[in-house]
């Protein structure tokens, strides 16, 4: 599954989201719970703002010295007998991984959750190669069984599905015979996947944070699937976005502490698994061969720009969980595996404005995202920057907006024209007035009045009022009529 998901047109994705009653209910309740747990956890920890400042400070330093830390990381992994491949593009990464698997003549691959492998569409390549790739995170397993339904949230990928739908998918595809109780569904998945873990030849994991000083990859999970994938198969391949790195274990502590609280309100997840190279020769379990694939795929071009802090993201989804727009349109409407505010910032940076010019507008700019971000990424300010770029540099605003702006430019550029137009406005709209407001506007007003009503232009213009205003505010009172 590549970065892009769902239909091509933003509008039809949004309409689909708005029309999906169950999904919207599920998102509302999930957002409520996740917000509560996050704020409870932050409050319980205390000094949350200090923690956020520390997180930001660490991420800034790391990003400014990214080449140094990636070099150190690769040296340390190699010292411990692991192989490191630096992949500039998605194709490079897929090609390398596919070659490793080919050499092993492996057919069964167990994967634990990894957004970057979704981004580079690794599964498609491996399946073409004849491999059986099993997603083992419960949410992703459900989506995979359901004919590769795309994820709609970066922490809870199957958020848009209800338990009855999941029961039916298990029944149809796997012969499941029990009820829709989450406990029974989960137990069934445990039994199915246990066999897969035991027979997989290669395990593929993501990487929450790599630790440069020791060549360690840390996985932050709850289900235990990432531990299975890094304990049982003989070969392990870990794929990381190049920015997912910390200098030392001391910073690992801080960022993990921020991540688990911001994501799900936990003090720590059930498992934080820190893996350094392959197993020692004398150890009885763990992979004999370890590969680390460091992926750029468009990230480096964000470095050194106004958007550099977007690379500070630790994928906690706190911004998604508070976003009022996500609440209504759901994850699929963003058309990207990265939804919500961070998706609206990151997706156009990774994949260009051409296909994603609408995303920066899928925001009310309320700033809730910026406020909860554990590493203080200025998310809503970035959305404004994107809008500016789209209009100024890329000239990609839509046609009616362009025409309207051109028209306004002409009007406002000429004192005489502006004068006439503003005087005429109350009369020009008269045919469209119903009950004192405009509910079906013509031309450029249509998009606005399709969803809400437009107030009438004042009979007295601001300029006239300003000219005739009297001291003491008498005239001002009249204006409210």
């Amino acid at each position, binding site marked *: 599954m590549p970065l892009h998901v769902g239909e091509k047109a933003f509008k039809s994705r949004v309409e689909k989201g708005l029309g999906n009653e169950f999904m919207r209910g599920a998102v509302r*309740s999930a957002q409520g*719970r996740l917000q509560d747990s996050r704020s409870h956890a932050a409050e319980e920890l205390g000094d949350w703002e200090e*923690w956020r*400042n*520390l997180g930001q*400070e660490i991420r800034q330093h790391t990003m*400014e010295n990214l*080449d*140094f830390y990636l*070099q150190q990381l690769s040296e340390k992994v*190699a010292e*411990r*007998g*692991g*192989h*490191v491949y*630096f*992949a*500039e593009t998605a194709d490079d990464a897929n090609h390398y991984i596919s070659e490793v698997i080919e050499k092993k003549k492996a057919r069964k691959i167990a994967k634990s959750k990894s957004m970057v492998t979704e981004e580079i569409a690794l599964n498609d390549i491996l399946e073409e190669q004849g491999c059986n790739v099993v997603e083992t995170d*419960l949410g992703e397993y*459900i989506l995979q069984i359901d004919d590769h339904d795309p994820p709609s949230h970066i922490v809870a990928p199957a958020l848009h599905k209800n*338990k009855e739908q999941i029961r039916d998918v298990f029944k149809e595809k796997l012969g499941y015979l029990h009820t829709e109780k*989450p*406990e029974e569904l*989960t137990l069934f998945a*445990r039994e199915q996947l*246990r066999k897969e873990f035991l027979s997989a030849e290669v395990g593929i994991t993501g990487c929450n944070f790599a630790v440069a*000083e*020791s060549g*360690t990859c840390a996985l932050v999970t*709850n289900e*235990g*699937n990432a*531990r*299975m994938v890094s304990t*049982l198969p003989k070969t392990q391949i870990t794929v990381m976005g190049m920015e997912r790195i910390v*200098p030392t*274990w*001391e910073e690992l*502590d801080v960022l*993990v*502490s921020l991540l688990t609280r911001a994501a*799900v309100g936990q003090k*720590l997840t*059930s*498992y934080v*698994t*820190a*893996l350094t190279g392959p*197993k*020692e*020769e*004398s150890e*009885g*379990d*763990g992979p004999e061969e370890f590969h680390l694939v*460091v992926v*750029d795929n468009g990230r480096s071009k964000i*470095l*050194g720009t106004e958007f550099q802090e977007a690379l500070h993201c630790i994928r906690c989804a706190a911004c998604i969980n508070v976003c009022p727009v996500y609440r209504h349109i759901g994850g699929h409407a963003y058309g990207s595996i990265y939804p919500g505010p961070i998706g609206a910032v990151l997706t156009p940076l990774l994949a260009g404005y051409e296909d994603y010019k609408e995303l920066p507008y899928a925001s009310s700019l309320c700033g809730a995202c910026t406020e909860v971000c554990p590493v203080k990424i200025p998310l809503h300010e970035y959305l404004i920057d994107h809008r500016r770029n789209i209009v100024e540099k890329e000239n990609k605003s839509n046609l009616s907006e362009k025409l309207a702006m051109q028209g306004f430019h002409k009007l406002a550029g000429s004192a005489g024209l502006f004068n006439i137009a503003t005087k005429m406005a109350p009369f020009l709209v008269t045919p469209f007035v119903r009950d004192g407001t405009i509910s079906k506007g013509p031309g450029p007003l249509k998009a606005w009045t399709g969803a809400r009503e437009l107030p009438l232009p004042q009979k007295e213009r601001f300029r006239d009022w300003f000219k005739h205003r009297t001291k003491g505010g008498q005239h001002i009172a009249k204006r409210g009529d």
Partner: protein
Amino acid sequence: MQRGEIKNREAFLDKVAGQLGRNRRKDNVIRPKWKHQVQWKVLADLTENELVDVLEKQCEVIHTDFIRTTEKELDAKILQVLQAYGVKTALTSDDSRFSSFGLTNKYQDWKNSSDIDVFKWDIESPGQSRHLAEQADAGITFSDITLAESGTVVLFSSDGKGRSVSLLPSTYIAIIPKSSLVPRMSQAAREIHHQIESGGRISSCINFISGPSNSADIEMNLVVGVHGPIKAAYILVEDR
């Protein structure tokens, strides 16, 4: 161990440096002293006994049974837990603390009184050890470092301490020497950092385990017990 291969690094990192508008930094990057040091304030002033209370309380949150005991009664408490969970076969890691805490010579009694078989991770036959881990009802390990705040046991893998012992059986039991208790992850991370700085070789797998596995992937309902253990118990032993 043979050194691994590194591929495509130079061009990749040159590009990163270029984007940052400077030459490559290959050395001389010094990690700054962070302006904010807030992590060291958490639970900082608590006594050891207060940390035990924090741990006990957190165990409720993470669905983990918590038992306090003394060195003298440790074996009896472990037996009680095994019986309560209906365990018939248990696998322990190969850790000298099992004998120094006087447990290894109790296994025969457990077999006689309660028909419980206890096996040890066998360095000599890893295949059989893994198989035992799949079959056993419970895995038992000692905690190497214990984090009070999050209810976490930290396990350093080694020849005798296989990763599977705390992972494959459906019940996991951690024995926590009171002396292994620290406030939070910061202290454990610093210890590992110092080990690296002084040229030490860290374990290939360091697990931070906080209770049984769980998931909320179906309608955000918490289900305890997914791929890892379904039940977990911590037995805290006064060791000084």
